[in-house]
């Protein structure tokens, strides 16, 4: 089966800036994939090219094996998109707009209506169906944007910052809903600023910075490859040296009043913990407290880009 989305050497320049410097990306059917990166990294441009909002300059994109330019009718019918910026409208109710949206996808009204009703109910928009967008709250607008991306029952769902500016409750609800859609077999590509979101939802992520992919992999693999975990043991009775290596694990010792603190630097703290505890006990020490520090995706991000994602 061809990849859900395959991007090859995508490059794009705007008047005075280079937005993409050769992006290669393959997303398999059924994946939940995250694009992480600071503002201006090229996430929205990449999504724009896949969906037809941004002109392709160089490189190629295919969706289920079909080229997005030559076979745009096929590729666009497979994709649902929720852009980052809210749309507005002065004339029509949100229900009407969703029916229109389905219509552009070639779905006649009688088939669109049950689908639109279902999506509105699922996202808690049904009570507001007669309202116009401009009278909706920010959270409701976000729900509407997501509803709109689902009216054509797409195989691939592309969400650009779906939880930007929404409250915690709605964020959790959207996470649950996205997981449900993923379990039903939809391929999901999302961009986000929220590291927690990517760690929680995505099977694989790419960190994109300055128009290039800095790294790609499963979140836990990326964290492990960074190898920056530690185990701290608060103890009494430590007799050995101030620091060095114990069974190949490097450590430091800080004496304190009555007791002291051993810090082990390890790749995977959860895996190394039993060994550390055993080593320390074997030295006749009494352990008071153990503290584990693990890297997260944010640390991976900082290590790769030299800046924090939200800065």
């Amino acid at each position: 089966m061809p990849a859900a989305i395959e991007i090859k050497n995508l490059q794009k320049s705007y008047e005075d800036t280079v937005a993409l410097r050769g992006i290669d990306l393959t997303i398999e059917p059924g994946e939940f994939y995250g694009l992480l990166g600071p503002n201006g990294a090229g996430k929205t441009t990449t999504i724009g090219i896949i969906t037809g909002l941004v002109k392709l300059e160089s490189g190629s994109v295919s969706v289920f094996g079909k080229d997005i330019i030559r076979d745009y009718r096929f590729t666009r019918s497979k994709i649902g998109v929720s852009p980052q910026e809210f749309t507005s409208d002065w004339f029509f109710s949100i229900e009407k707009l969703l029916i229109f949206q389905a219509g552009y996808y070639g779905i006649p009204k009688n088939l669109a209506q049950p689908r639109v009703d279902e999506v509105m109910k699922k996202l808690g928009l049904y009570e507001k169906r007669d309202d116009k967008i401009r009278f909706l709250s920010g959270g409701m607008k976000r729900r509407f944007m997501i509803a709109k991306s689902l009216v054509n029952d797409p195989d691939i769902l592309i969400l650009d910052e779906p939880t930007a500016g929404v409250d915690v409750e709605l964020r959790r609800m959207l996470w649950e809903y996205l997981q449900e859609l993923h379990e039903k077999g939809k391929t999901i590509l999302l961009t986000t600023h929220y590291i927690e979101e990517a760690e929680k939802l995505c099977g694989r992520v790419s960190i994109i910075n300055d128009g290039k992919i800095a790294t790609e992999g499963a979140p836990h693999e990326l964290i492990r490859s960074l190898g920056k975990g530690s185990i701290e043991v608060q103890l009494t009775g430590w007799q050995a040296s101030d620091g060095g290596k114990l069974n190949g694990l490097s450590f430091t010792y800080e004496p304190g009043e009555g007791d002291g603190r051993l810090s082990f630097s390890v790749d995977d703290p959860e895996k190394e913990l039993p060994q550390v505890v055993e080593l320390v006990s074997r030295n006749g020490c009494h352990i008071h407290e153990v503290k584990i520090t693990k890297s997260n995706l944010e640390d991976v991000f900082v290590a790769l880009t030299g800046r924090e994602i939200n800065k």
Partner: protein
Amino acid sequence: MNWIGFRTLTMREITRFFAVYRQTVIPGLITSGLYIIIFGLTLQQRITAIDGVSYTVYILPGLIMMNVITNAYNNTASSILQMKLLQQMQDMLITPMSNIELALSFIIGGAVRGFINGILVLLLGIAIVGMPVEHPLTVLLFLLIVSWAFSSAGLILGIIAESWDNIATMVNFFITPLIFLGGVFYSINMLPGFWRNVSLANPIYYVINGLRYAVLNVGDTPFSVSFSAALIMTIVFTIIGVGLFQKGYRIKS
């Protein structure tokens, strides 16, 4: 061809202006009615008939065209600009509709508004001053062509425009002057030679003159010339408008 998509967007464009008929349909009727009453009650007694037609009736085809042109143009131009400003254009661009389907839907929406406004002022003329309609089928055909032409012109301007000011500038500085100078209120034969020739360079002169022939069977220029001029405008504006849309000019980054 994505017929359902095409029909959906076309119907959206039509329902959009009907939803605000107080802004899009009624004003043309009121101003035209005012012109008819004011000119009919006051000036008509002082101006002799032109080409054997009373003055009020003589200006009616021009008033109809004024409505057709401004409504067709404004509908498409403002719809496109609004969609750009409200981020709605992206909703269409991501769908499996071709650029030609999108562009034609917008053109048809504006053309329908221009046509309906034209017909309403025509009926108003018949009702208030008993205006005769000499060639009814030609009138309908000509109104359709001109509605399409100026709706396409609106598409071009809507694509190029980046603010409401751009659209208003175009209307105030070009379209309205060209309509008034196109012989709505006079026959260009009344003008001195130089200005008469200048008028012949005004494309709107031909559409007014053509409709005057179709409605009243009088005119300064043969109908075939007016009809050709209208047809050329339709083709040229459509090709440019659809072409710009195809290129994604100021629509896609």
